[in-house]
């Protein structure tokens, strides 16, 4: 993954074929290992493993307003969550969201990368322009989208532009019928993350051996669609798979823009927003919240593993 050709060149070939030059102080190495990794592992234990185990424990208890419950309820919390219309509905919301955002981001970031890669002048400028939104937080972008770009009244930019063509004002977020809020939600995330994935595609494009295009030209492949379809796209397969997985995991964790854009609405709640209101809302139900968190965790593990099976993208090491 991180072994770029440049670094490979800098790395010496393993001296006389010995797997590990472990001459220096063998006794001290166990201590050194824990000296280096100890703080991290301790933190990982306390702030990652303990919470997960604790909440696994909590999920079997009646735990409202308390994190040290006493009333064991078995799988009751799981039953409640799995039959909870809002929680299950949030999984549906995620599905719609993923179906909208994953293909569009993939296509847009790839298109931007192809375009920027072909530019001969001002390439750095355009790359910066597309990349710049990555600096903006989801909260700030949501604010711009909600207050100015897709404001439901006349002075919103979208309504102003549409007004030129005689279209009436649209309540983009305040009305779920028709579901215009998806347009707002998808465009804000598209704007924020397309540049980031463009960078990944650009790096991958520059790694495609030039000889492939030369050979294709000799064989009579037309530049444009044909070389794209039969050379560029297959060569980008690993990056594409990684990007799709990352987009999917990111979509699964979507919170900021839904929370801010749809703050007072009951529609369009993805899993994390639902969980937030369930566990930290008015009735602080940590038991049900923990059960929900574990269900979500299991689902995401499942998706990651399945995708790894299908796309040949296992651990990060194979990503490039």
């Amino acid at each position: 993954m991180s072994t770029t050709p440049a670094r490979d060149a800098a790395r010496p070939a393993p001296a006389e074929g010995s797997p590990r030059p472990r001459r220096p102080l063998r006794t001290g190495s166990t201590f050194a290992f824990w000296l280096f990794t100890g703080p991290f592992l301790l933190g990982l234990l306390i702030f990652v493993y303990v919470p997960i185990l604790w909440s696994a424990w909590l999920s079997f208890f009646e735990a409202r307003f308390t994190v040290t419950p006493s009333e064991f309820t078995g799988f009751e919390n799981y039953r409640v969550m799995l039959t909870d219309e809002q929680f299950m509905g949030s999984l549906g919301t995620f599905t719609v969201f993923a179906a909208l955002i994953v293909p569009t981001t993939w296509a847009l970031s790839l298109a931007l990368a192809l375009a920027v890669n072909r530019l001969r002048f001002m390439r750095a400028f355009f790359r910066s322009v597309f990349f710049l939104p990555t600096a903006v937080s989801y909260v700030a972008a949501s604010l711009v989208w909600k207050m100015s770009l897709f404001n439901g009244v006349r002075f919103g930019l979208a309504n102003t532009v549409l007004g030129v063509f005689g279209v009436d004002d649209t309540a983009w977020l305040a009305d779920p019928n028709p579901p215009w809020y998806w347009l707002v939600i998808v465009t804000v995330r598209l704007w924020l993350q397309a540049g980031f994935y463009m960078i990944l595609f650009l790096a991958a494009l520059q790694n495609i051996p030039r000889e492939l295009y030369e050979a294709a030209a000799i064989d009579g492949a037309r530049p444009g669609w044909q070389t794209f379809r039969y050379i560029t796209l297959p060569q980008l397969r690993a990056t594409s798979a990684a990007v799709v997985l990352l987009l999917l995991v990111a979509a699964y964790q979507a919170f900021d823009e839904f929370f801010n854009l749809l703050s007072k609405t009951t529609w369009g709640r993805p899993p994390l927003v639902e969980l937030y209101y369930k566990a930290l809302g008015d009735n602080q139900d940590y038991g049900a919240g923990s059960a929900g968190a574990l269900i979500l965790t299991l689902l995401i593990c499942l998706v990651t593993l399945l995708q790894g099976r299908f796309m040949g993208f296992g651990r990060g090491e194979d990503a490039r």
Partner: protein
Amino acid sequence: MRTSTPAPKAAEPGPQGPPRRPGRSAGRPGRPGGPGGPGGGVLGSAGLYAATCLAAFLFLVPFYLIVRNALSTDPEITGEEWTFFPSKIQWGNITEPFDDPTVDFARSLWNSAVVGVLHTVGTLLVCSLAGYGLARIPYRHADKVFYAVLGTLMVPTAVTFVPSFVLVSSLGWVDSYRGLIVPGLFSGFTCFLFRQYFLGFPRELEEAARVDGLGYWGAYWRVVVPNSLNFFAAIATITFISGWNSFLWPLVIGQDPSAWTVQVALSSYMTNQTVNFHLIFMATAISILPLVCVFLFLQRWLVQGIAQTGIKG
């Protein structure tokens, strides 16, 4: 794409005989923009530039809105007629978020700065040490430890915010810098990135340090870190951005307004009873400014970091 104006370089026939379609460009091998085949031609190139400019324009519209609204008066923003730019630039708006009695914006900026810096320094310190230990120090059970780290990559931290909050609140860390910073320091992913990087670090540099009598610790600080500053800068930039922009965790932890970060403050503007458009957008502009500066000045490291390491966040 365009057959009428073939690129001059493509005129050479391939070694296997004459080109089958003499009029066609062969995609300019050797040009920087080679892959994908520009299709040559002035018109194709003009179309490419037109499309790219249009996309760039659309990408810049939100920035334009922020600047315009931040420097306008409210009547100009909410007027029936669209004003493209304020008739008189309201520089006085700059101080308004700081004078707003409902939201302590200055405090939230300070909180974000403290959290962003400490989050970055702490993550780099803890994760780089662990990454080095996993990559370089021989230990019998190192692979088991590594799998314990890899396992956490399967569970996104955002999904576990409920259990994390349960833990942090029972430690009494709600509304504190500790609560905002410490739980986020132990990123399995950052540790993994450092490990991958150190696996490729030239071994002979460390060997030389060892010969000079330095142990692992000394070699790490005197040789490895000084020779890895580019990588550290890349990770630091990415970590700072994700720390500054994070919202869910600060929202959960910042129950009291005094512990709000700037993102939580911005979010609160959206649900306030009274809406001061110019104030809100000025606050947004101020909150984005540090990161835009980071982007413009550190972009080299950032792009390199992203391209090298894959991803973060």
